Every structure is written in structure tokens, then in C-alpha cells.
């Protein structure tokens, strides 16, 4: 169905950004806040209308479309700025604008005293606009515009306090690592265009791709997702991105931008199922990233870093979900994660705000008494993410793991070996095991984080008295915590939902028929109860260990345990030295290569030897020739005589007439 008002969804926040950025310095604060908040809210409402149209339509692939204008056309390529709302993008729009709006409200409180508040809201609105364009685009190039746009806003917002060199560098790192991913994304677009002549989803859907072609294109696009969604090996920008203000971390690096990679894979599900090898790789990358990041998170002492690595880990879960062909599970976790991770980050922000900038958990403790509302929301969100009680996070995470266990996406894949090909059906259960182990770690480090921050006694300096945040900051926290609870409806198993007449509200039901089915076929039927119980056990086990090590009666048990494996502890605390490795192996050699090439090739070889050298050559020949013109008439006479003799000889030799 074609409409003419979809473009308002990204346009309104863009106008808000323009207003805040260009006029924000001179207009009253209230106007800036109003412009920023109202535009996002209006965008949410328009998105709600479109979502309603799409979800009330019986066909799961129903779309509300708009062709805004033809952006560029040359040769066979024609790229439109086209927007399309279907069930997936509609839901994403609501998440982006909804959670975005809550974070905007929170930021009104958080950034109130910062002199650059107008810049902050301009960038935040610009980000929302770019993210909406990414989500709504109906072709890969328009999506790429949003893709890089959110990268730009990430750069601007991470380096928001640009007076600090380290923060500016963190922003630059984010942009560059994202660009490396974008390099792959661009190549993927080129490949798809070369193979099919289309860049829009409708055209790609109808195109015929061979296995090799699909695999190449999907792998390249996934490289882009690795960069944007901070998976191994391009995750290193996300922890550094915590240099930005906490609302930025909440919105961009938890709820929305980093999920763009998952969104892209889910959107192109019809393409990825044609490349089962790539799906396999996606699942592996996701699982490994989840485990890797979870390990690092267990030993971080900065509260934002813990949450950052937690995000990387949870993104790994999402990729696990889409990688095993369960696109609905991955996207469901995307939605629920947005709720509870945003709540966690905003809660951390409230803590930092209340402690006047302290971010180290070693200096926190016992804050439950000083900030009860924040503590409660943080507790709820922690329960949600760890799955201690079946809230939204429990169902979404477990769905992914269950799908991995029973997946058939790899059932027909074969690894060639000398003694006959081996099947990969064991890969699903292997991923399940790894994922469960990661869930254990998740529970452990999240409860560690909660206990260190809110329980026990206050370990900070006595000069700093922690205080609760104003209502404008705690209200979004409460709403997000409530959403984390209510969101459990999304993941309810079918039978249960049917009994409660909540069928229509489960994500699986909502997206049934929307995503493509993996080539191996739909997943096998397992006993859901078993996986639920395992998940619960794992969550409680992790919480128990955390309680033993960091709870009120821990009394140094954690330090004694850490002292037993000092090298492991050091590796974990130092994030496995990955940043140092990249610096030594890639960054420094590249700059040295640049400097070396400049000195050796450009300055010496080309300029000195060739260019200046040829000039010297000409000058040298000139100075030789100059010797004939020294003003000595006798020399001239001698040369004339010699020349005459030569002429006479030549004439005589050839025979004069």
C-alpha cells in the first residue's frame, strides 16, 4: 500500500536536529527540549499509525510504502529513496522512537547542567532520524545512508566532550572501525548489484543467485554487521564508546545502532537462507563473541564497561539466533534487549550522576539505601537480563538457545574431509552449550555488577554523598523496567499464550510467515520445559556464585579467588589485550608504512631522483654546453675551422658536384 506520509517518520527528528543545532545556542532551553522531544514523539505516533495498518492486515508480509524521490540513476543503477513499513520495520520504528523518546526525557535531566546541551539534543535527534532511515529503507543503498549516518552520530556523541583527547580518540576509533565494516557492506552491495542488477529488497527477492554468489554477497554484508554490531573481531570500539555521555550509551550502544547489524540480517533473511555456510559462520561468530565478551565482563570494574561488554555479548546472542535460522528469535531478543539494556544503562547513568561522576564499582556499594528507585529498576532489569525469574529476557534468550539446540539449518551442510564429508548437525547443540555457558557467565557478571553497586556498604569517599536522581530521570527508568517485565509476553511459548489468549502478542506469532525459512527446514520440536529448566538453573547458579563472591558476606572471597589465577585475572581485566594487539599489529605498522612510504618513495625516489634529478641532468648538460660559450673568440674560431674541415671532408667523400 502506497502512502505519502511515511517520510515524516525520519524527517521530523531531522528537523528537530536542525533546529537544535542551528538555533539551539540562542533560544531558551525549554524550546530546545520541546523541539527535540516533540519531534521524536510525533515520529513515534506516525510510526504507530503505520504499524497499526501493517499489523492489522492479515498478510504477514503486508507493507506500507512510500517512494520519496529517485536519488540517483546512472547506467543500470537506479537508487530510490524509498521507505517501507512492514511488521519488522514497523516494530523497529516503535522501538527506536519509543525507547529514544524515553532516553530523550532522561537526557533532559542528565544533560541539564552541560553547556553543550543543545548540541547533544541535535546529535541525538540526528541519530534517531538516521536510525529510522536505516530501518525504513527499502533498498540497501538507502539503508547504507542510515547506516553511516548512525556511525556519524556515534562519532559525534562519543566525542561529545571533545576537550578530552581520549574521548575524541574514542569517537574516532568508533567511526574508523565502523568504516572497516562498511567497507565490507559496500562490497556486498556492489556484489549484489553485479550479480542481480538490483539493490532494492523487492528486486533482490526475485533474483536468482547461485550458492557462491549468495555466499559472497551475504558474507560481505555480514562484515558490515560485524563492524556495526561489535562482533569479533571488530568489537573493540564499543567499550571505548563508553566515553560518551551515558544516555548515548543507552540509546546508541545498547538499544538501537548496534542492533542494526542484526536487523539487516533479519531483513535479508530471504538472501541469507540461500547462503547456509554464511549463516553457520554468523552463528559461530555470535556464539564466540558472546562467550568472549562475557568472560571479559566478569572482571571489569567500570560499571559502564561491564554493561558495554554485556551488550557485545547479548548481540552475540542475537546473531546466534539469526544464524541458526531463527530470525524471529534473534529479533525478539533485539526488542527485549532494548528495553532492559537501556534501563540498565540509564540506571548506571543515574548512579554516575548521583555520585558526581564516579564510574568505578570499587568505589560504589550500598547505593540501594541512597537511590531506592534507581536500585529497584536496576534490579528488575538485572532479573530480566539474567533470567532469574522468567521476564522478557528469559524468554527471548531461551528461545534462541532452544532454536540453536533443535535447529535444522546446518543439517545438510557437509565439511569435506579425506575420509568422507562430515555433517554439521552437531553444530547446533554445540552452540547451545556455548550459549548456555555464556548465560551462566551473564548471570554471574550482571549480579556481580548489581551487588557491587547497590548492596553492601558504601566504599566511596566520604565527601561524596550519593543522591537519588530527579523524577525526570527516574520516570523513564521505571517505564523501561515495566517494559522489561511486560515484554515477557513477546516470548511466551505458543501453548501457554494460547491459553491466556495472548497469542496475538507473541513475537513468534507476529512474525510468522515474515521471515524466510532456512534451507534445512524448520527446527525440530524439543521439550521446551527442559530448556526452560536448564536456563533457570544456569541463571540461579550464576547468581549464587555472584552472591558468594560479592554478596554482603563475601568478605574478600573474590580477591582470594582471583589471587589464585593471577595471569588469567590480568588477561580478563585487560580485555585479553586485544586493543594492544591491534595497536601493535595493525595501527602502528600502518602509520609507520605511511611515513616510510613518504620518505622513501615520494620524497627520495620520485621527487629527488626523478624530478629534481632530471632537472639536475638538464642543468648538468647545460653547464657542459656552456663551455663552448666562454667569450673566447679564438675558441670560436677554432670550432669554426674544425667545422669547416668536417664539411669539406664530407663533401669530398660524397663527391662534390
Amino acid at each position, binding site marked *: 500500500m502506497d502512502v505519502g506520509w511515511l517520510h515524516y517518520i525520519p524527517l521530523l527528528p531531522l528537523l528537530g536536529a536542525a533546529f537544535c543545532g542551528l538555533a539551539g545556542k540562542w533560544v531558551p532551553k525549554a524550546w530546545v527540549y520541546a523541539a527535540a522531544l516533540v519531534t521524536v514523539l510525533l515520529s513515534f505516533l506516525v510510526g504507530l499509525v503505520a504499524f497499526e495498518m501493517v499489523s492489522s492486515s492479515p498478510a504477514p508480509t503486508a507493507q506500507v510504502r512510500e517512494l520519496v*524521490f*529517485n*536519488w*540517483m*540513476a*546512472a*547506467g*543500470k*543503477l537506479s537508487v530510490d529513496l524509498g521507505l517501507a513499513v512492514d511488521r519488522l520495520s514497523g516494530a523497529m520504528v516503535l522501538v527506536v522512537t519509543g525507547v529514544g523518546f524515553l532516553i530523550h526525557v532522561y537526557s533532559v535531566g542528565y544533560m541539564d547542567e552541560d553547556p553543550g546541551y543543545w548540541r547533544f539534543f541535535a546529535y541525538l535527534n540526528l541519530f534517531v532520524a538516521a536510525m529510522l532511515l536505516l530501518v525504513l529503507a527499502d533498498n540497501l*543503498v538507502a539503508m*547504507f*545512508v542510515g547506516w*553511516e*549516518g548512525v556511525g*556519524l552520530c556515534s*562519532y559525534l556523541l562519543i*566525542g561529545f566532550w*571533545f*576537550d*578530552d*583527547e581520549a574521548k*575524541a*580518540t574514542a569517537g*574516532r576509533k568508533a*567511526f*574508523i572501525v565502523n*568504516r*572497516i565494516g*562498511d*567497507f565490507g557492506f*559496500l*562490497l556486498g*552491495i*556492489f*556484489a549484489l*548489484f*553485479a550479480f542481480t542488477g538490483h539493490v532494492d529488497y523487492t528486486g533482490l527477492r526475485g533474483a536468482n543467485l547461485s550458492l557462491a554468489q549468495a555466499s559472497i554477497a551475504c558474507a560481505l554484508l555480514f562484515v558490515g554487521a560485524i563492524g556495526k554490531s561489535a562482533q569479533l573481531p571488530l568489537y573493540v570500539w564499543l567499550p571505548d564508546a563508553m566515553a560518551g555521555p551515558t544516555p548515548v550509551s543507552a540509546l546508541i550502544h545498547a538499544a538501537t545502532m548496534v542492533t542494526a547489524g542484526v536487523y539487516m540480517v533479519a531483513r535479508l533473511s530471504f538472501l541469507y537462507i540461500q547462503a547456509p555456510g554464511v549463516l553457520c559462520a554468523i552463528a559461530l561468530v555470535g556464539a564466540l563473541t558472546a562467550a568472549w565478551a562475557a568472560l571479559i565482563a566478569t572482571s571489569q570494574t567500570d560499571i559502564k564497561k561491564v554493561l558495554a561488554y554485556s551488550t557485545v555479548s547479548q548481540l552475540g546472542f542475537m546473531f546466534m539466533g539469526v544464524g541458526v535460522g531463527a530470525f524471529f528469535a534473534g529479533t525478539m531478543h533485539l526488542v527485549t534487549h532494548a528495553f532492559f539494556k537501556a534501563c540498565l544503562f540509564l540506571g548506571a547513568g543515574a548512579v554516575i550522576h548521583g555520585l558526581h561522576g564516579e564510574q568505578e564499582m570499587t568505589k560504589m556499594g550500598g547505593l540501594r539505601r541512597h537511590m531506592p528507585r534507581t536500585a529497584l529498576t536496576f534490579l528488575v532489569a538485572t532479573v530480566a537480563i539474567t533470567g532469574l525469574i522468567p521476564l522478557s529476557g528469559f524468554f527471548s534468550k531461551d528461545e534462541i538457545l532452544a532454536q540453536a539446540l533443535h535447529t535444522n539449518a546446518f543439517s545438510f551442510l557437509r565439511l569435506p574431509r579425506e575420509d568422507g564429508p562430515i555433517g554439521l548437525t552437531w553444530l547446533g547443540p554445540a552452540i547451545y552449550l556455548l550459549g548456555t555457558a555464556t548465560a551462566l557467565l551473564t548471570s554471574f557478571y550482571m549480579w556481580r555488577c548489581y551487588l557491587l553497586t547497590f548492596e553492601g556498604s558504601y566504599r566511596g569517599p566520604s565527601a561524596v554523598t550519593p543522591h537519588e536522581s530527579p523524577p525526570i530521570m527516574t520516570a523513564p527508568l521505571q517505564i523501561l523496567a515495566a517494559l522489561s517485565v511486560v515484554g515477557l509476553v513477546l516470548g511466551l511459548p505458543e501453548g501457554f499464550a494460547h491459553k491466556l489468549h495472548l497469542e496475538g502478542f507473541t513475537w513468534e506469532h507476529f512474525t510468522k510467515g515474515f521471515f524466510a525459512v532456512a534451507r534445512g527446514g524448520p527446527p525440530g520440536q524439543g521439550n521446551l520445559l527442559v530448556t526452560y529448566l536448564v536456563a533457570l538453573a544456569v541463571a540461579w547458579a550464576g547468581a549464587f556464585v555472584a552472591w558468594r563472591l560479592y554478596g554482603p558476606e563475601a568478605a574478600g572471597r573474590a580477591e582470594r579467588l582471583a589471587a589464585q589465577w593471577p595471569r588469567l585475572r590480568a588477561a580478563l581485566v585487560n580485555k585479553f589485550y586485544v586493543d594492544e594487539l591491534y595497536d601493535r599489529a595493525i595501527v602502528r605498522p*600502518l*602509520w609507520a*608504512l*605511511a*611515513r616510510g*612510504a*613518504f*620518505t622513501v*618513495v*615520494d620524497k627520495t625516489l*620520485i*621527487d629527488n631522483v*626523478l*624530478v629534481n634529478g632530471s*632537472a639536475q641532468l638538464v642543468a648538468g648538460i647545460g653547464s657542459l654546453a656552456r663551455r663552448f660559450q666562454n667569450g673566447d673568440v679564438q675558441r670560436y674560431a677554432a670550432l669554426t675551422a674544425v667545422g669547416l674541415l668536417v664539411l669539406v671532408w664530407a*663533401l669530398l667523400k*660524397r*663527391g*662534390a*658536384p
Partner: protein
Amino acid sequence: MSHLLTLVIFLPMAGALVVALLPRGEGGQHKAVALLTSLATFALSIALWTGFQPSRTGYQFEARAEWAKGLGFSYHVGIDGVALLLVLLTTFLGPIVVLSTWTSITERVKELCLALLVLETAMIGSFAALDLVLFFAFWEAMLIPMALLVGVWGSERRIYAAVKFFLFTFVGSVLMLLAIFYLWSKSGPERTFDYVVLLERLRLEPGEQKWLFLAFALAFAIKVPLFPLHTWLPDAHTEAPAAGSILLAGVLLKMGTFGFIRYAMPLFPQAALEWTPAVAWLGVIGIIYGSLMCMAQTDLKRLIAYSSVAHLGFVMLGLSALTAEAVSGAVLQMVNHGISTGALFLMVGVLYERTHSRDIASYGGLARVTPALAAVFLVVTLSSIGLPGTNGFVGEFLILIGTFRAPLGNGTLLAVLGSVGVVLGAVYMLKLYQSAMLGPVRHEALRSLPDLSLREWAAFAPLIVAIVVIGVRPGPLLAAVKLPVDEFITRVTARAPAAEPPRLPRPPRAPFFPRNVLPPREQR
């Protein structure tokens, strides 16, 4: 026959005459006349744009006048879509360049305005010329004012840079002149220098074509600049004043690429096909090498000069790919580079006027002191690295996607390597931006720098508007070049020439230099 094009070409020259007649010493008058003239030229060129019909083949606004009938050259001008865009770029940058000199150059103002206006005429003329001699005349005419700009109003090593620039580009042109004469001699019974006639009539052996193509290509490759003939550019840019740099990077470099697409490749298609892989590889090497050089720079202008090498590497890659997407992208990128690098050099000029230092280390933390300047710098930086939404993205994207599926041979590999350039571009530009603008204010002297003045805003505003508008709506520009691009590709890639006319027996050629000075023995 329309006289609009002739007017656009020679209006700056008329302005130069007025400047020449004004008495020396009153700097404001000369600059005012120069500004008015360049604004008027721009206004007239808008008329060119509105009167241009993208769907018509051939050259529009053609004008012709006999010059030397017996010798075969005439005053023949006309523009197609590609030339139109470049003429517009030139007239667009004209007023901006004059504005940039308003307070930064105070000596010999009259000569400066003369040089700028004559240069503008020469540049527009070279884009519009349809006669080889006329083209060569305008081409050479560009060298002197530019060399003067560098050599008189430049920095410490200006003489070296001016001489290097002049000699380097001149050497290439000399070979091209020889090639032009050869073409004249081969242009059929009625010898002519006219480009349109030559395109139809020329029938050259592949061996001949190779040398002619190389002669033309050398001249243009030096101008582009194509690796490894690029070393004149950093020196010229470093020592030139801001106005010189803007025009050099904005327009003069495009002469090289324009020469390829208008002269070198269509006139000698078989040779062009043979040599395009080499040109493409040199382009890609230029992209990566140029970006690496940028990373190693500590001088602000030199860094941006090397970034021009990288950007024009993209353009040459696109031209060599010979697909409609790539070539359209290359032409668009010519315009884009002019705007964004012109803006970068304007920014450098603005900074230099305040601190008189080109050393990056002498800046730092300026975003706190001059926020508007920092914001403009950011927009221009983003355009340079090809952020979607800015003009740079459209050009680079089209070039790379066109190269990827090119019948060029190693098209895919070239596109991959070119895309690496996209990443490297972000590396060095963001490092530059951070070193100059972000972080703590590194020197106390920087704290007192003023923010952008109204005049500077007036110079930047059109550039920023162009960056955004072309980024969002490149449609009209792409439509204008569609037909010339298609024709270009058809002409170069058509392997078998269309049915050749029957070859007439050649008359015996009278030797220019007789072999024997004396008659042979037997005749005595």
C-alpha cells in the same frame, strides 16, 4: 548561433581589462571589480544551465568564427553535459576565490585580480573549446597566471614550487602539441584542427594511435595528477596562497581528467582500450598511496594536496572502468572534488590567515575557540570522506559500483582496493580534524582567534549548500551527463569501427627534409 558561451568565456577577460585600467594602489576597487565580474560570469553560466537540454545529443551553445582558414583552425566553442558541469564549477568557484583573497592578500592587488580573471577565462575556454589549437591556447594560457599566483603571492619556497609546476605541466603539453600537429596532418584532404571533424574523420593505425594517445595522456596525466607524476602538486599547493590552491585543486586538476574524457580517449579508442587497465591501476595506486601519504603529513596543505591525489585516483578509476555508472560517477566526482577540496583549501586559508602556520601541531582544540569554524570544517571533512548525504558519497559510490562489474579485467579487484581508500580517507581526515579542532586547546595563542566573519561565511555558505544539495539530489547533474557519457563509452569500447570509407591511394609525400643535401653522383 548563440553568443552566450563566448560571453561567459570572455567576460572575466573584459573584467581584467577594466582592472588593468584602474589605477594601482586602491586595492578595494580592483577586488570589487573582480568580484563583480566573477559573480556576473556565474550568473551568465546559470543561463547556460537553464538553457541546456540534457536530451539533445551533440554540443550546445555552439559558436564558430573563422580564424585561420588556410591553416585549419577556427574559433569553435560548444559544450556538452560534462563541459557544462565543469564550466559551472569554474564560475561557481570564481567569486569564492576572490572573496578568499579579500583580506589575506594586500600587495600587488591589481596584478592578483588580473591573474585571477585571466585564469578564469582560460579555464572556461579550455572546457568550451572544440578546436584543438584553441584548446591548446587556453590550456597553456592557464599556466602563466597560475605560476604567477604561486610564485608571487606564495610562501617561502614559492619560486621552486612555481617553476616546478610550470615546467612539469609544460613538458607534458609540448608533447601534446606535437601530437596535435600530427593529427592535423592526418585529418584528411582538407587539413583541420577542428575536434568535431577530427572525431568523425580520423582513421589511425593502432601503432599511430598508441603514440598519440601516450602523448596526450602524458600531458593530462601530469595535470590530474596521476601517480607517479604527482610530485608537483604538493609543492604547488603548499606554497600557493589560498586562492591559488582553491583554483588549482578545484578546477585545474579537472583539466587533466576532462582531457582524458574529451580528447585522449575518444580520439584514439583502440589505444585507449589497450591502456585503460594501466590507467586504472595507476588510479588505484594513487588512491591508496595518496591516502598513505596523507597519513604521514604534518603540513596542513600538503595533506590536503595528497588527498587530491587520492580523490582524483577515484575519478581516473571511474573513467577507465568504461561503464555508465562508473563514468557518470567520475564526472560527478570531478565536480564534487572541486567543491569539497576547494572548501578544504578555503578552510586552510582561513586558518592560515589567523595563525600563519601550516603545521598541524600548532593547532589543537579550536572547536572550543571557534565553534562555527569547527562545524564548517566538520561538514567539509565529511564531504571529503564520502559520508552518505554529502556529495562525495554519490560520486564514490557510483565509481566503485561501476568498476566492480566492469569489463575491464581486474574490475573487481580494483573496486575492492578502491574501497580500501574509503576507509583510509576516514583515517587521515578524522585524524586531521581531531588534531586541529578537538582535544584541549594546545597553545595559549589559539584562544584569541576570532570565529568566522561574515565574509568568510559568504564564501563557505554556497559550498556547504552545494555539498548537501548535490548529496541529496544529484539527479539533475547525472541527467545532464548521461548522453555524453553513453556516447563516450560507445565510442571507446566499440572495437570494430563502423564501415570504413574506401581508402584512397595516398599521393607520394613530398619530403620535408630531403634525404640528400646534394643530388646523387650519377646526375653530375
